[in-house]
């Protein structure tokens, strides 16, 4: 089958690459030539810059229509979603109004009982500003979408620790120790399998 190889850049995910090529994300992710990538990363939401994705040639579809008449063709829009859990001191910010601004497109809503919010976004959206709360009690988050690296990389561990409120900005090992202390794991400063699994559970992926 014909197609091309696409090298993943920072900020890309299966959904954004699929949108760029005009095809559903499942077509990329489930393609036999991407089987090894699928095994390696397991999660279509998170790829590492440098990963190679096989992009099959688009299907061609022939449609016969009369000339000199107007015809309507519909294309399924490629979208992704964000699902975010907002906590304050590890407690959910439940039933709280929020405003989400994704590349200039604004939406509003209320978090659910567990502090969760979910929004549909363009698959290639890059930046978002999330404001949770009202009046004097507002948390403002600047978000970089699709730049989270896989959890088995240092940068992926760092991104998750920062989101969870641990100081891992300049010293990753110190951040890992903080996390291990809080989670009552052996405090080694090293990212072992137990620490990684707990981090995945706490962050959500």
């Amino acid at each position, binding site marked *: 089958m014909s197609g091309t190889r696409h090298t993943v850049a920072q900020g890309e995910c299966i959904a954004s690459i699929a949108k760029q090529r005009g095809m559903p994300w499942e077509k990329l992710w489930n393609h036999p030539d991407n089987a090894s990538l699928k095994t390696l990363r397991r999660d279509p939401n998170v790829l590492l810059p440098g990963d190679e994705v096989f992009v099959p040639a688009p299907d061609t579809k022939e449609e016969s229509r009369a000339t000199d008449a107007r015809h309507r063709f519909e294309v399924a829009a490629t979208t992704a979603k964000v699902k975010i859990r907002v906590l304050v001191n590890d407690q959910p910010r439940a039933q709280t109004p929020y405003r989400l601004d994704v590349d200039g497109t604004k939406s509003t809503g209320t978090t659910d009982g567990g502090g969760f919010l979910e929004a549909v976004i363009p698959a290639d959206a890059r930046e978002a500003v999330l404001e949770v709360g009202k009046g004097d009690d507002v948390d403002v988050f600047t978000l970089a979408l699709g730049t989270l690296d896989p959890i088995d990389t240092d940068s992926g561990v760092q991104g998750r620790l920062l989101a969870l*409120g641990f100081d891992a900005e300049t010293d990753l090992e110190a951040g890992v120790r903080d996390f291990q202390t809080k989670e009552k794991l052996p405090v080694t400063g090293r990212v072992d399998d137990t620490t990684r699994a707990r981090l995945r559970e706490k962050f959500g*992926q």
Partner: protein
Amino acid sequence: MSPRTIARLVRGSTAFNTLNVRTVPIHFQRSPGVATGNDRGIEGLEFQVLSAGAVIQRGRTPADGKIDVRLPTPQVTVRLLVAGVTASEYTLSVANTLDPVNGLSGQKQRLRMLGYQIGHDGADGNGVDAVQNFRFERSVLDFQADHGLFTDGTANANTQAQLTTQAGA
């Protein structure tokens, strides 16, 4: 400060991203040595909390002077305003950066936080070093007097315990 990174999720995914905000309780109190009884809290002071230059929290201090400062990023700046003009600024970090209370530097850090004049010696020019000097001794005397402790100017066990209580750590 860099933005928080999260993943876009494909439709049908059950994964999510968590954003946790930590808060730190900060008490704003009147200068030591001022006879205000037990009511040292500063009420009605306008404050702002800034992260990466942007205001992320604002309000006025309540009667006890205590506010819960949000730390969406590991470091924020707390700005106190008087009549709309910045009067002072503090930098707060998530990490517990206080030295142990049984050492000189840890005692000086707590005295400084609590508003005692410990001078400007030391590498950072904030008075926090491990050198015994007359300013330290005077601050300890002031602190002991303020809290009804035996005033001998030495940071003994009782004084250390009171320092820990007052500083909150």
